C-alpha cells in the first residue's frame, strides 16, 4: 500500500495498464513530451514512446474520432480532453458514434474507449476551465460515466474503464488532483463500474454525492458527529448506470436525503437520483428530498470572491446537512 495523490493514482493506472496490455495507448493535447497540463501523463512518453503516447492537434473531435476508430479496430485508447470544457466539439463523436456503435451494429462491434476529462472549479479557471459537463452526457444510453473521489477509486475505476468493452467517460475533478491523497494497493484491482460506495455509515441523514463534494460531505459529517448527528455518505462513483440499489438502500436507512453536486441544479444528476427515490421510496421518506448544487448560472465567474461564493464547500454542505437533520 502506498499513499498516493489522486493524480498519481490516475497516472499509475494508465502506466500499469499500458504495461499489461500493449493495445492500451494515450492520445491528447500535450500528453506526450509535456506530460499533460496537470502532469497526469508525466513519464509515460519516456517509458512508452511516440506510438503509445501521442500528442494531437487542438481538435477534440479528431481526438475522439481517432480514438473511436482505434477502439473499434481492437485497440484500447485513452483519449484525454485537456479540460472537460473543451470536450464539446467532441460530443458529436461521443454521443452519436461511440455511444451507438454496439446498438447500431446489432452487437457486432464494440467501442472500448476511455475519454478522460478534468472537471470542476475551485482552481480560478473561470468560464472555460471550470465546467462540470456530466449533465450533457448523463442522459445518453450507451455511455458509461464514472467520477472517482479518492485515489483508490481513481485507479480502480480507470483500470475498470480501460478494460470495459464500452465507451466510458472518466471525469476526474481537477481540484482533487493534489489535494486528495489516500492509500492505493500495489496489486492489480478494479473498482467495478456501476457500484456506489458508502464512504461513511450513519443513521440520521443520507448524503448522496460524487467527486469533490464527497470530501466536503465527509468533513461536514465529522463536524456534525460532534453534535450527535450521524450522516451516511454515499459516493455514487458511477453516474451512468446509477447504482439504484445502493441509492435506495442508503435512503431507506435514514429517510432523509441530501443530494450534493457541483454541476448546476437544473437537469443535473441529482434530479435523476431524486426521481428514483421519489418513485421507489415515497413511503420511507421522512423529509422532502433536498438538493444542494451549483447555481443555475451560465458559467463559473472569473473573480476569486465570486468563485468562492459559487463553489460548494464544507461549511455550506454542513449547513445544509444540519438543516436536514433538524427537519
Amino acid at each position: 500500500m502506498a499513499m498516493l495523490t489522486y493524480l498519481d493514482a490516475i497516472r499509475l493506472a494508465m502506466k500499469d495498464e499500458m504495461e499489461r496490455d500493449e493495445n492500451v495507448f494515450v492520445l491528447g493535447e500535450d500528453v506526450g513530451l509535456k506530460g499533460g497540463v496537470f502532469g497526469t501523463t508525466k513519464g509515460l512518453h519516456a517509458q512508452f514512446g511516440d506510438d503509445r503516447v501521442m500528442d494531437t492537434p487542438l481538435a477534440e473531435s479528431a481526438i475522439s474520432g481517432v480514438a473511436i476508430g482505434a477502439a473499434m479496430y481492437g485497440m484500447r485508447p485513452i483519449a484525454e480532453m485537456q479540460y472537460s470544457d473543451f470536450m464539446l466539439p467532441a460530443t458529436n463523436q461521443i454521443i452519436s458514434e461511440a455511444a451507438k456503435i454496439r446498438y447500431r451494429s446489432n452487437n457486432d462491434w464494440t467501442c472500448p474507449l476511455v475519454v478522460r476529462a478534468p472537471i470542476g472549479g475551485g482552481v480560478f479557471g473561470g468560464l472555460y476551465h471550470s465546467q462540470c459537463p456530466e449533465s450533457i452526457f448523463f442522459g445518453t444510453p450507451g455511455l458509461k460515466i464514472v467520477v472517482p473521489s479518492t485515489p483508490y477509486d481513481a485507479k480502480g475505476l480507470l483500470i475498470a474503464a480501460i478494460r470495459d468493452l464500452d465507451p466510458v467517460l472518466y471525469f476526474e475533478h481537477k481540484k482533487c488532483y493534489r489535494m486528495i491523497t489516500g492509500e492505493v494497493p500495489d496489486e492489480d484491482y478494479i473498482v467495478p463500474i456501476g457500484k456506489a460506495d458508502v464512504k461513511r455509515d450513519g443513521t440520521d441523514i443520507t448524503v448522496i454525492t460524487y467527486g469533490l463534494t464527497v470530501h466536503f460531505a465527509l468533513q461536514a459529517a465529522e463536524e456534525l458527529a460532534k453534535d450527535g448527528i450521524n450522516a451516511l455518505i454515499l459516493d455514487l462513483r458511477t453516474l451512468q448506470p446509477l447504482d439504484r440499489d445502493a441509492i435506495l438502500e442508503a435512503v431507506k436507512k435514514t429517510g432523509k436525503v441530501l443530494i450534493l453536486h457541483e454541476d448546476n441544479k437544473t437537469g443535473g444528476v441529482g434530479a435523476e437520483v431524486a426521481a428514483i427515490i421519489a418513485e421507489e421510496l415515497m413511503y420511507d421518506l421522512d423529509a422532502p428530498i433536498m438538493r444542494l448544487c451549483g447555481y443555475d448560472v451560465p458559467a463559473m465567474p472569473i473573480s476569486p470572491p465570486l468563485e468562492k461564493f459559487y463553489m460548494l464547500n464544507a461549511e455550506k454542505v454542513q449547513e445544509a446537512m444540519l438543516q436536514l437533520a433538524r427537519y
Partner: protein
Amino acid sequence: MQQTGAKGTEITMPQFAESVVSATIGKWLKQPGDHVEEYEALCEVITDKVTAELPSTASGILVELLAAEGSTVDVGTAICIIQENGIEGQALAVKTTVAAPASSRTALEGDSTLTVTGDQSMRHRYSPAVRTLAEEYSLDLNLIAGSGLGGRITRKDVLDYVESGGSKQQHQDVISAPIVKSSSAVSANEIPMNAPKVPVRSTGLHLSDNKVGPYVDIEHKQSSDSRGEYYIDITPIRNTIASRMRQSVTEIPHAWTMIEVDVTNLVTLRNKMKDEFKRKEGVNLTYLAFLMKSVVNAIKDYPIMNSVWGVDNIIVKRDINISLAVGTEDSVWTPVIRQADQKNIPGLAREIEQLASKTRAGKLTPGDMQGGTFTINNTGSFGSILSYPIINYPQAAILTFESIVKRPVVINDMIAVRSMANLCLSLDHRILDGVICGRFLQRVKENLESFTQDTNLY
C-alpha cells in the same frame, strides 16, 4: 359562545339539541399552534344523539386545549382558547398540557400527556415514513414527542419511541382487539363474535369495511395474568348504547313473536326491476324498501303499534317515523325516515340508502336521529335468520327482517322450493298483546306476499 380574555378567546361547548346538557369531546381536529379559521372544525363532539364537528367561532391561533379527548363537558363550558388574529400573537407559548380523563388514556409507562412548548407549526405534518411506521406499529402519534423542525415528529422519534417499548403492548392489543368488537341491538347469539376471516357479508346496511365512529383507545393495564384478559375503554357511543339498552330491558316488559313470510314473488319482482331501477333512480332497489312499505301500511291498519307508554295513558303517534337500525363496525345507530307513510317504494329506497351512507360516513346530525316511532332492523343483511331485538326505547315495538332463505315448503299438499324469510317482533307488553301483534304481523305478511311480478313500484 365566546369570551375574550387575557390569553385569547374562549370557545365554549354549544347546545347541539334542546335536550343536550353535556357533550363529550371525541377527537381534537386542531392542535395548539394550529391556525384556525372561523367555522373551521375544531373537534368532534359526541352527544347521546349524534356525533358532530364543532365549528370554531373565531379565527386565530389555537393556544390551549381546556378539555381532553374523551372528557364530557357541560354545555357552556370553555373547551379551548383561540388567540385571535391581530392580538400580539408573536411570542406566545403554546400549551398542550391537558389533563387526560381518568377513564380514557392511562399512562403508558408513566406519562402519556406531552408538555410541549415552542414552535409547533409542524407538529401534525407527518412524513410518509412516520405514517408508515405509525401504521406498522399501530402507534398513536399524539403520544410521541416531536424533535424536528416546528415540533415535527421525525422518523427517528418514532423509532426511539418504539425502541423504548412505548408501543409494544399497544401493538399486541390491537392485533387481538377485533375479537371483542361487536355490537348490535339484537341478541348476541346471531352475531359472529369472532373476527371474520372472510369479508363480512353485507347487503349495504350493516358492517361497512371502513370503521367509523369514535377512536377506540385500547390500553393494556398491568394485571397479574396479562394473557388471560385485557381491557377496552368504553367509547362515548358505546356508553350511550349500553345505557339505552339497559333502560329498555329494565323498563319495558318485552315479549317476542315471529312469523315466516313467503317472499318468492317479491324476489322475482325485485330481480326483474332492480337493474332498470338502479339506472333510473341511481339507488339500489332493496328488499328493505318493500318491507318498510309493508310495515308502514300495516301500522296504518293497526295504529297502536306506533305508540308510547305514557304511564297514565298510551300516546299514539299520528306520524309514522321509522327508525332504521344501521350497524357500523363498533356501534349501531338509528336514523329516522320521517312520515314514511307518505313515501312510495322508490322514495323509501332512496332515503334508506342516504341514511345508511350518512351513518357509515359518521355524518348523522341530531335531526336525523329524532322522532322515531317504530324501529326496523334488517338483521338479514348480516346473515341472521332469527333475532330477539331489544325495543328502541320508548317505542312500542321493533321488527327485524331476517335472511331470505330457500326452503322446501308444503303448498296444497305438494312440496315446493320457496324463498322464505322470518320477521321477528319484540313488543312492549304493557301496550301490546299477542293477538294484536299477531294480526299486525299477518298484515305485514299479506302485504309482502301480495307483491307480484306486475306490481307497479310508483
